[in-house]
């Protein structure tokens, strides 16, 4: 601060005549020296470790071959727009799927946490559904639905691989997301329900006004995690022949026997997933800070 001539103000705005003591000035200087040392050590160790790693890779016997077949820059530039067009399919699929998943998963979570007698059969079905779809690999679900449903030859039912692939992804992810939502609902303390019920709110009003707003706020970080995983897993529908980023890369790579398109596709996925995971981390840290603050109050 360069306002040395104006009086210092404390947090509530009172003027204060505080001047740091000699000991404090000394301490600040000491802390600066310590901080500088830490930076020097961190820089040195990073240079050593990363440098050794790079040298080990570059001097390895197969490096030239790998560089040509995986990191061919001019070939990568040439296929970039094809793979990027494929990625649009992944993004569209992610957007549409996440909306449907949100609705379906919330229904499952509400059914599983409800105590209503009339809903008992639905509760059992929801539990069975979640158990099954959480337990079967996504790839198998995609194969079963993608090849199984058209084989039924039901008239009027779509045989579009894009739609069937999306359905498979939605079915599996709804089970995951339902569990996340359910854990959020169960994490709201029973005393909150008691307070709401004692005010005369019905079960469903308690859920709507008191439980769900708190539950959803708490599960936003894990839900963002699932969103990242969903975007990556949409690549699996390529197995049905959907031309997404993975499939587009595969077509080119199998034509030229050069795997640079795979690297291009990976980099494109990273362009979206890294910002998203950074954002997820930030929201997670914020929500932890908020919960700790509440615990301390």
């Amino acid at each position, binding site marked *: 601060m360069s306002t040395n001539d104006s009086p210092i103000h404390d947090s509530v705005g009172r003027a204060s005549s505080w001047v740091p003591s000699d000991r404090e000035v000394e301490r600040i200087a000491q802390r600066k020296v310590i901080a500088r040392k830490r930076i020097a050590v961190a820089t040195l160790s990073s240079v050593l470790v990363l440098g050794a790693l790079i040298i080990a890779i570059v001097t390895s016997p197969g490096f030239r071959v790998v560089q040509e077949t995986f990191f061919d820059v001019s070939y990568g530039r040439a296929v970039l727009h094809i793979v990027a067009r494929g990625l649009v399919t992944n993004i569209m699929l992610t957007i549409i799927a996440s909306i449907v998943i949100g609705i379906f998963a919330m229904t499952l979570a509400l059914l599983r946490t409800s105590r209503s007698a009339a809903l008992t059969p639905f509760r059992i079905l929801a539990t069975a559904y979640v158990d099954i779809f959480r337990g079967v690999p996504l790839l198998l679900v995609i194969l079963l639905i993608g090849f199984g449903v058209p084989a039924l030859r039901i008239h009027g039912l779509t045989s579009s691989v894009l739609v069937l692939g999306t359905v498979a992804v939605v079915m599996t992810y709804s089970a995951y997301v339902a569990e996340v939502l359910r854990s959020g609902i169960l994490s709201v303390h029973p005393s909150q329900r008691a307070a709401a*019920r004692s*005010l*005369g709110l019905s079960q469903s009003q308690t859920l709507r006004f008191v439980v769900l707003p*708190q539950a959803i706020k708490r599960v936003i970080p894990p839900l963002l995690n699932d969103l990242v995983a969903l975007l990556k897993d949409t690549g699996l529908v390529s197995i049905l022949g959907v031309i997404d980023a993975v499939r587009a890369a595969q077509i080119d790579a199998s034509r030229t026997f050069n795997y640079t398109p795979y690297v291009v596709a990976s980099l494109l996925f990273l362009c979206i997933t890294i910002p998203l995971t950074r954002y997820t981390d930030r929201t997670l840290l914020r929500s932890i800070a908020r919960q700790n603050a509440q615990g301390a109050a």
Partner: protein
Amino acid sequence: MNVLEVRNVRKCFGTDVVLEDLSLTVPEHTATVLIGASGSGKSTLLRCINLLDDIDDGSIVLDGQEITDPAIDVDVIRRRLGMVFQSFNLFPHMSVLDNITLSPIWVHGVSKDEAQSQAMELLKRFDLGDKAQQFPDRLSGGQQQRVAIIRSIAVRPRLLLLDEVTSALDPVLVNEVLSIVRDLKQDGMTMVLATHEMGFATQVADEVCFLESGRIVERGPASQVISNPQLPQTQEFLKRVHEAGRL
């Protein structure tokens, strides 16, 4: 006229008998104070009256209607009861004003404007007018508990249940909460309250009940039960409270 009659109530948790053959009558505009050690059944009795817990025998009657009838709509009964908890239980995701107006608007069908103006009136009366838009985590414990009390009376309950409303508070904050309760008593609110504050109990109680192991073992006006207890258990309990500096 009796607002509340508790008749021979029994309550068990598993094999633990928490309330046994407990009877209580609360006439209109009176305050009944429950005292007794932790675990003597005070909170359980209040939770049973509010139908948060089911009783195992006996009956509870509100304004002449048995509310422990299994066929009764508990939501409708709870509209006539207010309850304040030891741990405040404000809704952390809502402002003070929204906490107070939630039930009037959605349960009692009061218009939003009217509910808000009534809530503001109550907040101002209890010196919380400037806190209406704040969230609970920005308030002190005493302020939170005062908001919780206002929230429970905003729906004009027939009977107010207060469960050790000052037990979670700093000693310096206790009085601002107790003064609200005194004001409500003066307004003629009928109430049943569990407390460890004997001085306060003496001021507001029309009847004091000393509970031990789920039974009311001594009852009467405060001048008798608190100032001049007859039973050795009551004397022992009050002595211990006194030693803890609460008398």
